[in-house]
């Protein structure tokens, strides 16, 4: 799962936790150099057999490999993969600090010299881009190299666009991710936007789905980073997210979409999108940062819809700590106490601010009031406006009357206000049946059927495997014929003998 880390600038701490987790889960493979070498071989195979599956396998190991890179590893790998006098090799090496370390490593490590001779042919250009991607990721680990990384990123992008090979697409998608990261770390994320927009146009013209998916996410993230929700919304409405995009990209896309819709008060759609993001996200242990970020928004949106999130969510080992502030908010909303809500809000203001959920949470105020009124209407058959005012900590009776009136109109409660006597009479609650139920039911059935169809579509069959089956079937038919013949003959024999006996 190479592409799953979400890296907003404010998630540094979680990212560290992420790294730790990932180290624990990956088994220790032989060595970085040999892994790179075998990866290059796989890429080569992918290009020659036109089977992008191999490239995907290479890219899956990217996240794990990235952590084990250093100057020596990269230099050795390049030296081994390319022939001695290759021009590409010189270019690639020039991006790494050429230190005395180069000769040193050559001397210490005995393997490179023989192997480099054994590879006579120049690897495919895809391999070069892959190596560039690795170098880029490596440069990004230390702040002093950011300027160099930006240069490399620009150079690589130009190279990619000049090459224009379809077999390059999966790698290109990853390169764009690295490019974005480079610009972000250098603090000029907005400068990369024209570059992304141009590339996105090209990618969609070439039906390059993977790059397109990656770039749409890059752009959305860039817009949301600068709170440009209008532009982000326009981008979403003008582009179609490629259906064949890989899961991590889909998860991201749904997350961004959920955020946009939540800001636009379209909570139902936001809820659906965030749910999709959670379902498509990699396991929480591998990418806790993303999992936490989605859930934070998810909890707030669920509250805004008037639902209370499940208690078990806050006991989840990955989420428990990250969501503690949100848990307090949920408690306040559940009890419908305005004062408790205000206290919690001011207490955790910095946290919500950092998560960019503060303005969303402020909107919850009306939900708190509504919950309060609903609780009162359930427990009293008649209550004076004065008491409502005291119980919900409202400012005046006059306000209470308007608020209750609005709640009745919005269908939050069933009841009547008797103005002359100054009280509210509460009626019975609506029972849950009618067309809404069947509609809900239809939607759920539709979802299950869709899921089934999707999974049937997603099944993979090895190429030409059906030929073998056909051959088998042919053989079986042959055998059957023989058998039938034998039986027939046997039957005749039997008949004969039977006749003979008679």
């Amino acid at each position, binding site marked *: 799962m190479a592409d799953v880390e979400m890296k907003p600038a404010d998630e540094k701490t979680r990212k560290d936790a992420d790294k730790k987790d990932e180290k624990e889960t990956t088994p220790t493979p032989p060595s970085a150099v040999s892994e790179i070498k075998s990866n290059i071989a796989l890429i080569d195979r992918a290009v020659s057999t036109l089977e992008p599956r191999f490239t995907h396998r290479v890219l899956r190991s990217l996240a794990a490999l990235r952590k084990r890179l250093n100057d020596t590893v990269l230099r050795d790998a390049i030296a081994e993969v390319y022939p001695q006098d290759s021009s590409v090799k010189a270019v690639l090496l020039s991006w790494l600090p050429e230190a005395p370390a180069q000769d040193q490593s050559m001397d210490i490590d005995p393997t490179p010299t023989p192997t480099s001779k054994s590879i006579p042919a120049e690897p495919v250009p895809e391999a070069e881009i892959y190596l560039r991607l690795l170098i880029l990721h490596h440069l990004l680990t230390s702040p002093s190299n950011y300027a160099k990384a930006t240069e490399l990123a620009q150079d690589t992008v130009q190279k990619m666009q000049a090459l224009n090979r379809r077999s390059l697409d999966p790698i290109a998608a990853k390169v764009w991710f690295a490019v974005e990261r480079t610009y972000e770390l250098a603090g000029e994320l907005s400068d990369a936007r024209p570059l992304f927009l141009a590339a996105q146009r090209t990618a969609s013209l070439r039906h390059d789905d993977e790059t397109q998916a990656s770039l749409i996410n890059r752009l959305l993230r860039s817009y949301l980073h600068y709170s440009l929700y209008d532009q982000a919304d326009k981008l979403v409405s003008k582009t179609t997210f490629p259906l064949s995009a890989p899961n991590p990209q889909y998860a991201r896309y749904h997350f961004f979409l959920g955020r946009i819709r939540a800001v636009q*008060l379209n909570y139902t759609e936001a809820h659906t999108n965030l749910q999709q993001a959670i379902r498509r996200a990699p396991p929480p242990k591998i990418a806790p940062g993303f999992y936490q970020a989605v859930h934070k928004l998810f909890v707030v949106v669920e509250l805004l819809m008037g639902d209370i999130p499940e208690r078990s969510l806050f006991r989840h080992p990955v989420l428990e700590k990250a969501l503690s502030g949100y848990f307090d908010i949920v408690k306040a909303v559940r009890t419908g106490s305005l004062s408790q809500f205000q206290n919690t809000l001011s207490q955790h203001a910095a946290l919500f601010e950092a998560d960019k959920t503060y303005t969303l949470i402020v909107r919850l105020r009306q939900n708190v009031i509504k919950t309060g009124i609903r609780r009162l209407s359930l427990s009293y058959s008649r209550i004076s406006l004065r008491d409502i005012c005291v119980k919900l900590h409202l400012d005046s009776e006059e306000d209470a009357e308007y608020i209750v009136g609005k709640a009745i109109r919005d269908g939050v409660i069933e009841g*009547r206000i008797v*103005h002359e006597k100054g009280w509210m009479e509460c009626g019975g609650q609506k029972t849950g049946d009618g067309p809404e139920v069947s509609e809900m039911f239809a939607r759920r059935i539709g979802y299950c059927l869709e899921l089934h169809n999707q999974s049937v579509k997603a099944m993979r069959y090895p190429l030409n495997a059906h030929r073998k089956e056909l051959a088998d079937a042919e053989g079986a038919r042959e055998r059957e014929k023989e058998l039938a013949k034998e039986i027939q003959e046997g039957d005749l024999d039997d008949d004969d003998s039977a006749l003979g006996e008679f």
Partner: protein
Amino acid sequence: MSSSQLPGLYKELLRAFTSRPSDLQKTGQLLTQLKIVLIETGLIFPQRDHKPNELVVARDILEIGAFWSIRTKDVPSFDRYFAQLQTFYNDYSSVLPMSEREYPIRGLNLIRLLIQNRIADFHTTLESLPLPADELAVNPFIKHPVNLERWLMEGSYSKVWKAREEAPAEEYKFFVDSLMGTIRNEIASCEEAAYDSLPLKDAGTLLFFKSQSELLAFAQQRNWQVNLTAETITFAHKGEEKLDIPKEKLIANNLAYARELEQIV
């Protein structure tokens, strides 16, 4: 007309605009001339490299234009000026010094969205303000629309009524009347749902009407039954709508399930 005229016209505009009472007609004429100059010099949608002081002048002109549109009660024109100002506020925020009119104008835009009942746009705009969230509650120009929105959503209409005189800038008051219209309609629809009947006097207070004749006109508009002898208003309740079983839809759904199931089995 050439760009050399810009400083002269700009000074004249400032004078016309800041004089008390400001000369609205002359400001309007000058604005038209200045806009032509701005277009000719490419300052209205700055793309090439302009000097910061030129950009500041362009921004000032557009800001005055925005205020002028409000004073002449021309909301669509305000909309256009605001759209043009976006470039200066968002893309040039690092180059230009902060304008003291920026937040009043942003606040006015928020109120405009609120009155037109574009709540989703209101929140999107609010979210994209370059302010930290706790600052929203402090900045007087932004605080006003934010509070109004909250009260409207909660239903604390009396607070909105009281806040109408507390506008942080002169121009905000222009929106008060239309805002009152909006909340009266809101309250009326609430009353229709929440009350069986109301005494005339109380209905007047709830809807913030000063005289009975205003109330009666309003009641007629909304088709309320007014009983003048008993001095009450009765609200006709729409009976519970009869729920039809959506037969065709159910049949279509069931057929679709059958088809899908057949594919699976």
